[in-house]
């Protein structure tokens, strides 16, 4: 099947970068004939590219032969899909009940103070993104934060700077 490409793509979109374009095409090719491919493709794009830009959504829609509105509808529905690039590192704050009761609000305050950005934002140098996340299921370690893929439990506000130092350099 001929590869279809959306009309306008900004120059810094992953679709304009040959090495990323290859990955995107592979993901599409692998799942093209699987029933329910939209979620599978988006999950893989999110994990391998890091975000799903509007142009990428259009590209997915064209190649899976579904309306762009369907793809965008799925992207905007699920909190895991983001449409803009994140920082090189992410710090996720678990907002499960045990973590909330265990002092997560204070921890978030401390993080805002240390990094100077609000939750949902990325530091100006593009290094760290702060995010709130749903219960990660490590409740006996509450309060829990996840730095990139690594889980840290029983974090006290005064211990936070030590943890963030590793990814700040």
């Amino acid at each position, binding site marked *: 099947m001929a590869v279809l490409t959306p009309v306008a793509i900004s120059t810094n979109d992953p679709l304009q970068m040959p090495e990323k374009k290859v990955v995107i095409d592979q993901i599409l090719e692998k799942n093209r004939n699987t029933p329910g491919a939209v979620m599978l493709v988006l999950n893989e794009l999110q994990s391998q590219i890091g975000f799903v830009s509007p142009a990428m959504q259009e590209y997915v829609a064209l190649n899976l032969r579904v309306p762009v509105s369907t793809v965008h509808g799925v992207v905007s529905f699920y909190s895991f899909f983001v449409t803009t690039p994140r920082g090189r590192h992410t710090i996720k704050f678990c907002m499960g*009940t045990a973590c909330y009761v265990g*002092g997560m609000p204070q921890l978030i305050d401390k993080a805002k103070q240390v990094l100077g950005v609000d939750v949902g934002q990325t530091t100006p140098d593009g290094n760290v993104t702060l995010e709130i996340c749903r*219960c990660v299921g490590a409740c006996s370690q509450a309060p829990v934060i996840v730095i990139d893929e690594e889980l840290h439990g029983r974090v006290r*506000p005064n211990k936070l700077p030590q943890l963030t130092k590793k990814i700040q350099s």
Partner: protein
Amino acid sequence: MKYYRTHVLVCADPECIKRGAHEVIDSLQDELVAQGLIDEVQVLETSRIGGCSDGPEMVVYPEGVHYSGLTPDDMPYIVEEHLLKGRIAKKFVVPDVPFTDEELRAPSAKEVRIVLKNCGQIDPENIEDYLAVDGYMALAKVLTEMTPDEVIDTVTRSGLRGRGGAGFSVGKKWQITRNVQDWPKYLTCNADEGDPGAFMNRRVLEGDPHSVIEGMIISAYAIGASYGYVYCRAEYPIAVRTLNIAIQQARALGLLGENILGSGFSYDMEVRMGAGAFVCGEETALIASVEGKRGEPRPRPPFPAVKGVWSKPTNNNNVESYANVPQIILGGPDWYASFGTEKSKGTKTFALAGDVKRSGLVEVPLGISLRDLVYDVGGGIKDDKGYKAIQIGGPMGGCLPIEYLDLPVDYESLTSAGAMMGSGGVVVMDDETCMVDIARYFMDFTQDESCGKCTPCRVGTRRILEILNRICAGEGKDGDIETLEMLCREIKATSLCGLGQGAPNPVESTLKHFRHEYEAHIYEKRCPSKVCRALIRYEILTDICTGCTVCARNCPTNAITGERRKPHVIDPDTCVRCGICMQVCNFNAIEIR
């Protein structure tokens, strides 16, 4: 299968991995090679062994010695002392009682482990380990000795009810799907364990994935389904990985695929990952998500048993429901029904969390009292503070006060008390928890996770949250409580799915049991538990403060001033009541007024 004289089980729970379990394993293996023991000692990765509070940890069999607090550098010592010379390395042995099977299987005499029986005992990434503990025996029995109707009859007679929370008879559900004359049929397994505070399913998937797969194959045989989907939430990457490995191994042994065990029955399955939407735990939303669509629920009927995945008959059960099935087949329905109460049979896993001493996973017979669950199994309240409430059933559950401590934990009792079984998250709250704030927390969760399809849930939860936010900010007004009650009633009665119908539960139950706290917030502008920021003030006790400046240095808004070695003061106007000063103070000199 190869034989080893000693087995070392290393905990590869996320918490232990974080503390370096993989490094410990690498070092252990290097040392075993160096000492020439690699053919005598087998090293296995397993799911959680103990509390993981001082991991990485391991158990050495056949002695059953439990070591914790390990580092890669300790491995030469342990290999030489224990594995070579046979002397127990005392300094790493977990204190209090020596680790035995009994402790793992039943930390409290009140526990009965059926679903959790293999967790921490076997290597989840090796199907042979599961086979060694009678794994897939139930499947063999079903395929060779039983008709689908006999299987359904056995499950029905066991009294097993849906462990995802709704509590519908599993056997009856299978029967309904079996009776529908439309093929192909599908299975879905709900592993979208989204309730904050619940992690039972994660543990089963990570520690004993084959029990779920076996349960699903048996279910597929009973119903006549040919394909299954496990829908797992994206927050559980390790569970997805373990399950995928397990499915591959089962397929390699002919336990999945065409003509299973030569019986002529064919079934296969795959894992589908969610992407962070709580509502996908609702069965019709889950099905939409498996199909790659927005995870929005739809009205029932038609029920999934008639029109489910790809508009074909689909049976949907929770991870724990499926995991119970092999044990019921092997032990017989009467054995399973001997646990529990008249209407709620068997055992249920609970995740104990919050202000409880022994937090973690437990499995108890249904009908146990909340008191036994918290004080006996859970060891009581942390720091011996007072018991305030138990939150059971996740964000759709309710908060039960001290008067309900003797309530039996079964489906009907919990529902009539205004809570629910839910998937099994139990959060214990001590007397420093504000119940209005907790209600606000849950509404914040549900209004954020409401999919927006139906108006009562989309708008109603938002309105409730706005009122609660106002009350917590000290701007509550007369009539708020009545408005909340009205909203709760109407959202419950008119919402499309379980999320909306259950969303008002935390507010309703706290209004019922902790009304005085709402009244204190609204009429006296006071937070009795000293949690709501707008209603409290931090003060430094001048006679205790040593002027160490720790608080001033940690204050995010520089609201604390004072000279070194002289008592400090907090400026209430600049203070944002984050409480960091109180946490960092080494002299308990900061008080909330």
